[in-house]
C-alpha cells in the first residue's frame, strides 16, 4: 500500500507538470466551445445558446480523448527507458497500473472542474445545485476512458499505432454523440446507432438532468461508466506484460 502511495505521488507530480495534458484538458475544450459556439450562434435561441450546448458536449468529448493521454502514460516508462527499474523493484504490477490510472483520472477531473467553473461563469451555464453531480459523471467518464486507454497502452508497443487505432472510434463516437452538431432522428435503426456512442449517453444524461430534472439517469450512466472502467482496469492488470511495459517505439524519442 505504501508503494502505491509513493508511485501515485510521483505520477501525480508528473501529470501535474505535463503541460500538454493540462493544456489539452483546459484550454482546448474552452477554445473549442468558444469557436463552435460563435460559429453556430444563429442556430440556437437566446435562453439556450450555442455556448450552452457546446459547453456541455465538448467537455465529455475532450475527456474521451484523454484515452490517448492514458495510453501514452501507460507507455511513458518504456519511452523514458525507466521501465526496467519498476520491474525489478519490490512493487507489484497492480500498483504500477493503479498509480498511472488514478493519477490520470484525478488530474483530468481537476481540469474538468476548472473548465466547468469557467463555462458556468462566462457563458452563464445554468448549473447550480447540479454542479457536483455533473462533476461526478465526468469523473466517472474520465476513469472509464483512462482505464480503456491504459489497457490499450500497456498492451501495445507502438504509440503511433495506438493513437491511430484510438482516434477513429473516438471521432465516430463524438459525431454520433453530437459533439460537433446536434444529431436527432426518428429512424429506429439510426437511433440505435446513435445510442452505441457512450458520448450520447453522457450528453443525454446531462441534458436530462439539467433541463428535465432526471437525476436517476445521470447516476445510472455514471455507474455504467464506473463498471466499464473497473472491467478495463482489471483487464489492464491481468494482461500486464513485462515485455510490452519495457519496450516502446515512439519516433523521435531516443536518449
Amino acid at each position, binding site marked *: 500500500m505504501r508503494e502505491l502511495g509513493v508511485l501515485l505521488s510521483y505520477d501525480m507530480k508528473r501529470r501535474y507538470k505535463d503541460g500538454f495534458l493540462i493544456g489539452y484538458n483546459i484550454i482546448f475544450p474552452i477554445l473549442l466551445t468558444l469557436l463552435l459556439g460563435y460559429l453556430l450562434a444563429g442556430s440556437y435561441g437566446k435562453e439556450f445558446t450555442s455556448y450552452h450546448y457546446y459547453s456541455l458536449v465538448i467537455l465529455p468529448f475532450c475527456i474521451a480523448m484523454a484515452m490517448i493521454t492514458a495510453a501514452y502514460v501507460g507507455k511513458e516508462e518504456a519511452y523514458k*527507458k525507466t521501465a526496467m527499474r519498476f520491474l*525489478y523493484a*519490490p512493487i507489484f504490477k497492480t500498483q504500477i497500473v493503479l498509480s498511472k490510472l488514478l493519477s490520470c483520472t484525478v488530474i483530468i477531473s481537476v481540469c474538468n472542474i476548472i473548465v466547468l467553473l469557467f463555462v458556468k461563469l462566462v457563458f452563464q451555464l445554468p448549473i447550480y445545485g447540479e454542479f457536483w453531480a455533473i462533476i461526478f459523471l465526468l469523473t466517472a467518464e474520465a476513469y472509464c476512458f483512462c482505464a480503456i486507454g491504459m489497457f490499450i497502452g500497456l498492451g501495445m508497443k507502438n504509440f503511433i499505432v495506438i493513437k491511430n487505432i484510438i482516434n477513429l472510434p473516438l471521432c465516430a463516437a463524438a459525431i454520433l454523440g453530437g459533439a460537433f452538431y446536434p444529431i436527432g432522428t426518428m429512424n429506429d435503426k439510426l437511433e440505435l446507432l446513435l445510442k452505441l456512442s457512450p458520448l450520447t449517453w453522457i450528453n443525454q444524461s446531462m441534458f436530462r438532468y439539467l433541463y428535465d430534472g432526471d437525476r436517476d439517469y445521470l447516476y445510472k450512466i455514471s455507474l455504467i461508466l464506473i463498471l466499464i472502467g473497473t472491467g478495463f482496469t482489471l483487464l489492464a492488470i491481468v494482461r500486464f506484460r513485462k515485455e510490452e511495459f519495457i519496450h516502446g517505439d515512439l519516433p523521435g524519442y531516443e*536518449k
Partner: protein
Amino acid sequence: MSALLEVKDLSKSFSDKKVVEKLTLTVLEGEILGFLGPNGAGKSTTVKMIIDVEQRDDGEIYFNGEKTEDKMKVFKKALGVVPQDISIYDDLSAYDNVRFFCSLYGYKGQELKNRVKEALEFVGLWDRRKEIPSKFSGGMKRRLNIACSIAHSPKLLIMDEPTVGIDPQSRNHILETIKTLNKRGTTIVYVSHYMEEIDAICNRIVIMDHGIIVEDMEKERLKEKYRQQGFTSLEEIFLHLTGTDLRDQEA
C-alpha cells in the same frame, strides 16, 4: 564464502531457438563475478531471468538458499541492477531521481534523505544534485544510473555494461566505486565486454557462449590454466573459448 545466488538448469527459448540451455551458476557472497560472452551468447537473457524481468522456461533460482519465487519481495529488496540503458528520468533532478527509485524500496523520511545523499556523494554527483540529467555528460549519466541502483544498499548488485561510451576518467571513477562497494559487502555480478575492466576488478570469471557456460573459474586460476596453452591475456583466452567469428547480435 557461501553461495548468495544459485541458478540451476536455467533454460529459455525464443520460438524454436534455445537462447539459454540448462545454465547452472553460483554467485558467492562477497565476490565480484565477471560475466563475459560475445553478443547473442545469452548473457542479457540470463540476467533478465535472474532479476524476474524475463519469464524462464525451466530451472530454479535460489537467493540465500531460498527459491526466489517463494520470497520474491525479499529477493527484490536485496537486489540492485544497473541496466545497460541509462535508466533515469531526464526531466527530474539527479536528487529526485535517486530519491524516487530509493523510495520504491520502502525508505522514507530522514533515512531516505541520508541514503540519497550517500549514494550521490558516492558517485561524485552531490554537488550537481539539483541539475537535471539532460544537461549531464555521458559519464555523469552513467554515474547517476549507478546511484539510483545502489541507494537502497543491495546485497547483490548486477551491473550490465555500466561503462559503455564514457571517457577514461569516468570509467576509472566507476571501477573504483565498484571496488569500494564490494569492500563494503556488496556482491557484484559485472557483465562487460571490456576485458581490462574484468581483469582489474573481478575475482572470478564466467564465460558464456551459445547459451551455455564454457568456463567458470577464479581469475588467477583461469589465467594460469590458459597461460600453459600459450594464451597470455584475458582477451586471448576469451577469443580462444568463443571463437573469432563475427557475432551479429539478434534483437
